[in-house]
């Protein structure tokens, strides 16, 4: 599934990286508010779902090598965080949906976790 399809499916707003969404293919998802969990289990190229919107979420995404970040529950990062993601070329999306619902929808569409 492309990130553009995920954007439509989850009614996301794109905060940065719109131009890359159609070409980014996502098959795995890592979801956590714990950054060490993301670092421990992400194998690279996943979609990262988190409710943590500070600068460390993007740093973690960059270090773990995930393809994109999706913030849940309508939580929005500061402008500086979005700018940092733009510099690192990591697309950032936000949806009003809760993490459990997001994961359920993506799982039902065939996406897998990292375990």
């Amino acid at each position, binding site marked *: 599934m492309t990130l553009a399809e995920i954007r439509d499916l989850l009614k996301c707003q794109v905060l940065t990286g719109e131009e890359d969404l159609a070409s980014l293919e996502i098959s795995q998802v890592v979801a956590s*508010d*714990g*950054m*060490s*969990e993301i*670092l*421990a289990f992400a194998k*690279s190229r996943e979609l990262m779902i*988190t409710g*943590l919107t*500070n*600068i*460390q*979420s993007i*740093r*973690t995404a*960059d*270090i*773990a*090598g995930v393809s994109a970040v999706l913030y849940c529950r309508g939580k929005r990062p500061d402008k500086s965080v979005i700018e940092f993601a733009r510099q690192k070329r990591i697309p950032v999306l936000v949806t009003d949906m809760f993490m459990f619902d997001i994961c359920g929808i993506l799982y039902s569409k065939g996406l897998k976790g990292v375990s």
Partner: protein
Amino acid sequence: MSGELMREEFPVQGRNFDKAGEVSSEIKVILKDLGIDAACLRRVVIVAFEAEMNVVMYADRGTVTLVLTDSDINLEVKDEGPGIPDIELAMQEGYSTASDEMREMGFGFGMGLSNMKKNADEFKLESEVGKGTSVFARIMLNAHA
């Protein structure tokens, strides 16, 4: 450590959460520019980032030293922090002494040290209470391609 090709020391400012991770990002850029294999690079930066976060969370200051040889990448992370009284306990996944502030940053869930150990081919942790902690990690080049 034979054939040392590069050695660089980076200062880490303790308690500064805004800057936390900058050194690891810089190390990633340096190693990427050198054409280090992606899997190896990933291991190095995860170890560096977790170690850097620990310095920021617990210590007043510290240093990250990156040493590249013809066969491996070494990270030495030293801090002037409170030290770890029981290293065996601290190494257990899930054990944490983190504050609420640290957890709000998404860290301090008791996985940092085990993450570092898991991603390193050699890992050593030394600590003296009241003085500080030193982490040494070696990641072999080409071992995880």
